[in-house]
C-alpha cells in the first residue's frame, strides 16, 4: 500500500518546476558516501486485507483476553460506554496537532478546559494540567516539582506506591540532586506512622504516598498530610485507580498539595500498558511550577469566549533548559476520552460505578477469605483491590487457575520479597458474581 497522492504526471511537472530532473538530484546535498546503496531489509509491502489478517493473527496469539482476569495493579478494566469510542474516533479529534493555532482548535481546547475542571473537581485541587504521559511519570514530575518549590533534598516515598512508579521516580531524580527514602507499610497495609515520623525532618521536601495504595488499601490522608505539613514538607498523593474518586473524598480536602496519578480507568482500555493518562493537579500558589500544558479561558477581539494554551513561559519551547519539564507532546487524545467518559457517566454514574467496585471487591475478598488456608494479608480497608495470602506458591496456584480459563491475582514476591505466597486481586464492576464465585470454587481446588 502507498499513501502517496501524486500521479506520475504530477511528479514530472513538479520536478520540472523545482528545476531538477529527478528526486535523487534533490538529495545532492547529502555526501555520497553515507547514502544507502541497497533496499532496506524489511518485509515486502502488504495490501490492506493482508495487513488485517497479519494483525488478527498477532492479536490471536495473545490468549490473555480470552480469560476471566483478576489482574489490576495500576491497570483497570472498566466498562466503556459506546459513545466514548464513537465520538473519540472522529478525525477532527484524532488528526489535529497540538492546538497552537487556537482559532482553528477550539474543539480540542475546550475539551482540555473541561478535562482540567473535571480533574479539579475529582481531586479537590485548584488547578490541573492538560495531561502527562502516565501515572509513573506524573509521580516523578510531582517529586521534581516539590524539589523546585522548596529546594530540599529528601523525598519520602511510600513503599506501598506502585513499584513501577517508584522505579520511574528513581530514574528521573538520579541526576537532579534529590534522594529518596522509602516509608514501610504496616500490618494494615497502609503506611507505618512511626516509620514516617522517624524519617520526617527539615530536609524533607515532600511525602509521597498512594491511596488507594498498591495493595488497594485506603490511607488516612488527613493524618499524613498534617504530619508532612508540621515539617514544612509538601504532601503529594498519587492515585493509580482513578475510579476511587467516585466514592472516596478528594485528597485536596485533607490538605494535599499535589495530586497526581493515572486516569486510565476513565474510558481507556488496558492496551498492554499504554497509551494511558497521567494527570496532575496542585494548589493555585504552585501554578508556575506545574509541568505540562495548560488551557485557559480568554476572549477574542469581539469579546466572545475562547480558549488558548497558556502560561507557556513554564514550558520548554519558551524557557528551554529553564523549563519546569521537558514534556511537549502529551496524552491529549486519552484526556479527551477521559472527558467523554466522565461526562457520559456523570455524577450519579461515576458514583454508582465506584460503589459497585467496592461492593464487589468486598464480596470477593470475603468469599475467597473463607477458603481454608487463605487469608487476607492486610487489615486495612480497601477500594477494589486486596491482597490474599496462600499456604503455598502463587505461581503454582495461578497455573491451576489458568488451566481453567482464569488469570488470578498478581504474584507479589517479584515486587515485594517479604510478601511470599501473596497475590493482589482486583475486582471491578465488570466482574459478575458468577465469575467471582467461579474463581472461589476453582481456587478451593487448586490452592493446595
Amino acid at each position: 500500500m502507498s499513501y502517496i497522492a501524486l500521479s506520475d504526471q504530477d511528479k514530472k511537472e513538479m520536478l520540472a518546476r523545482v528545476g531538477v530532473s529527478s528526486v535523487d538530484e534533490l538529495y545532492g546535498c547529502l555526501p555520497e558516501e553515507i547514502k544507502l546503496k541497497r533496499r532496506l531489509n524489511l518485509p515486502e509491502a502488504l495490501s490492506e486485507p493482508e495487513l488485517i489478517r497479519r494483525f488478527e493473527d498477532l492479536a490471536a496469539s495473545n490468549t490473555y483476553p480470552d480469560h476471566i482476569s483478576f489482574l489490576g495493579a495500576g491497570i483497570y478494566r472498566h466498562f466503556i460506554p459506546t459513545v466514548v469510542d464513537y465520538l473519540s474516533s472522529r478525525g477532527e479529534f484524532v488528526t489535529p496537532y497540538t492546538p497552537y493555532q487556537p482559532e482553528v482548535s477550539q474543539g480540542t481546547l475546550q475539551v482540555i478546559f473541561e478535562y482540567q475542571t473535571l480533574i479539579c473537581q475529582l481531586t479537590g485541587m485548584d488547578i490541573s494540567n492538560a495531561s502527562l504521559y502516565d501515572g509513573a511519570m506524573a509521580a516523578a514530575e510531582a517529586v521534581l516539582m516539590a524539589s523546585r518549590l522548596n529546594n530540599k533534598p529528601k523525598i519520602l516515598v511510600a513503599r506501598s506506591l506502585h513499584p513501577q512508579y517508584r522505579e520511574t521516580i528513581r530514574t528521573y531524580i538520579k541526576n537532579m540532586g534529590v534522594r529518596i527514602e522509602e516509608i514501610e507499610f504496616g500490618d494494615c497495609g497502609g503506611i507505618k506512622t512511626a516509620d514516617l515520623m522517624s524519617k520526617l525532618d527539615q530536609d524533607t521536601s515532600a511525602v509521597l504516598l498512594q491511596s488507594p495504595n498498591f495493595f488497594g488499601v485506603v490511607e488516612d490522608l488527613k493524618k499524613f498530610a498534617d504530619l508532612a505539613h508540621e515539617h514544612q514538607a509538601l504532601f503529594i498523593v498519587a492515585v493509580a485507580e482513578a475510579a476511587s474518586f467516585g466514592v472516596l473524598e478528594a485528597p485536596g480536602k485533607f490538605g494535599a498539595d499535589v495530586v497526581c496519578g493515572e486516569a486510565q480507568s476513565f474510558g481507556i482500555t488496558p492496551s498492554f500498558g499504554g497509551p494511558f493518562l497521567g494527570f496532575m493537579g496542585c494548589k493555585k500558589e504552585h501554578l508556575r511550577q506545574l509541568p505540562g500544558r495548560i488551557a485557559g479561558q480568554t476572549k477574542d477581539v469581539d469579546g466572545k469566549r475562547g480558549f488558548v494554551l497558556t502560561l507557556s513561559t513554564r514550558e520548554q519551547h519558551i524557557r528551554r533548559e529553564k523549563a519546569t519539564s521537558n514534556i511537549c507532546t502529551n496524552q491529549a487524545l486519552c484526556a479527551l476520552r477521559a472527558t467523554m467518559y466522565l461526562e457520559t457517566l456523570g455524577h450519579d454514574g461515576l458514583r454508582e460505578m465506584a460503589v459497585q467496585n467496592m461492593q464487589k471487591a468486598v464480596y470477593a475478598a470475603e468469599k475467597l477469605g473463607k477458603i481454608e488456608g487463605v487469608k487476607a494479608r492486610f487489615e486495612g480497608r480497601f477500594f477494589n483491590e486486596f491482597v490474599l495470602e496462600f499456604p503455598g506458591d502463587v505461581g503454582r496456584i495461578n497455573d491451576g487457575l489458568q488451566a481453567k480459563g482464569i488469570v488470578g491475582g498478581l504474584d507479589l514476591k517479584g515486587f515485594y520479597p517479604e510478601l511470599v505466597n501473596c497475590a493482589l486481586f482486583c475486582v471491578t464492576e465488570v466482574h459478575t458474581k458468577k465469575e467471582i464465585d467461579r474463581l472461589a470454587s476453582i481456587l478451593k481446588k487448586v490452592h493446595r
Partner: protein
Amino acid sequence: MIREPLIFEISDKGKRAFRLPKLDIKAKKHIFEGLAIRDEIADFPQVSEVEVVRHFTRLSQQNYCVDLGIYPLGSCTMKYNPKVNEKVAALDGFAQSHPLAPADMVQGNLEIIKLVEDYLGEIAGMDAFTLQPSAGAQGELAGMMLIHACHEARGNPRKIVLIPDSAHGTNPSSAHLCGYTVQEIKSNENGTVDLEDLAQRMTEDVAALMVTNPNTLGVFEYDICKIAEIVHAKGGFVYMDGANMNALTGICRPGDMGVDVIHINLHKTFATPHGGGGPGSGPVGVKVILEPYLPIPRVEKKDGAYVLNFDRPKSIGRVRSFHGNFLVIVRALAYILSLGPDGIREIAEMAVLNANYIRKSLENDYHLKYTTPTLHECVFSDKVQKDHGVSNLDIAKRLIDLGVHPPTMSFPLIVHGALMIEPTETESRRDLDMFIEAMKQIAREAKEDPGILKSAPHQSYVRRLDETAAARHPIVKWERE
C-alpha cells in the same frame, strides 16, 4: 455556527447518559464505615446521552485536522494517518491485554515490540531500540540518561552538552533534566553547525552533542561525519534528534553517519495520529556500546518464545510504567508493514519533492534567510511583508480564512519572523497548489490591503484571541459564579 457551552453550563440534576447493570450481590452498608466517603462531587456534570453526543460533535467541528486538509507545520510531520492502522490497534487481543499478564499469554504483543525494535534498527542503522519512551521529549531524556550512565561507568559523567542554536526547546530541557549544563553552538551562514565553534567547545567535559538532522531549517548537516569525528575524538557521544527522520527514510541511516543515539517520533515519521497533542511515542536507538544501559525490561526470544528480561544490572531503569505507548507502536508496525522497503523510501523522496515544490513556488513572494538546499521542509520569514507592517502572525491567521492550516511560526529562533513549512509526502498536488495560492494571495494582500491580514481571521469560530490576558489572569477551569 452554534456556540457550544461548557458541559457544566448545560448540566441538570438527575440526568444521566449511562447506567450499569444492577448490583448482582447483596450491597453492604458497613463497608463505608470509618472511611472518608464523599456524598457528592460538587458541580460534576449530569447530562443525557444525546447531549453528550451533540456536545462533542459540535466541538469537533471547531477543529482543523489532517483529515480536512493540508497541515504544513514544520518539524511536526503532519502526514495522513491511515485508517486501517486504527482498526488493527483496536483489536481486542491488543486493546484488552494486560502488561503484567504472564508472558506466554501475550506472545503477540511481545512479538510486535521485537519486530518494531528490529525494523526501526534497520531503518535508522542502529544496533538496538527501546520503545518505552512515551514521546520525543522522553526519548531525549532516556537517550541522554544512557549517555550519562555510560560516561559514569567510565568514571566521569561529564558536565556539558552542546546543542546548536537551531534546536528544538526539548533538547536543552532534556539535557538539563539529566543534570547537564547546556552550551549553544552557533549556526554558520548555511544554517548548519559551525565546525570551528564545535571544535573549540568540544572538550573532555562535554558528554554529548545533540544534533537534529536534517536540522530545523530542513538543511542536511553535510559535515555530519566530520562533526561525529570531532565529538568522538574527545570521547563524547553524538545524539541525534530524529524529529526530521521523514526526510531520510530509506535514503541514508543515522547509524551510518556516526550517530550513537537517536530518538524517532512514531507520531511523525510513522504516521500515528497526533490526537490534538498526543499520545506519541519516542523510541530510542543506540549503538551496541550503549545497549546495556537501555531501560528495563527487554523483550528477548528464548527457546522459540518471547520473554521479558529484567536482569540488566547496567540499565538506567524505567522511564515510565509498562512497555510504553503500546497501541501507538502497533499502529507504527502496521504502517511499516503496509509500505514495505520501497514505500518507506518513497516517504522521504516525496516529502522532499513536495517541500521543494512549495519552496520554489514561493521563493519570489517570501524571504528565505538561508538559501542552502533543503529537504523535507523550508523556512521562510515575514521580512518582505514586514515592510507593510504585516507579521508572520498576521500571515498565519489569514491562512485560516483561506482554509489551510498555518505553518509553524517563529521557530527556529535563528530566523526572525519564521514560517516553517513541512507539507509531508501525503499531500496531493491540488492541496499543495491550494496552499501555495493562499500564500501568494496573502503576499499580494500584504502590499495592497494589509488591514485584512492584521484583523484576520475573519471566518473562524472565534476571531483572534487575547493570549496575553489569558496568561496574566489565568482562568484554567470552570467555576460556578
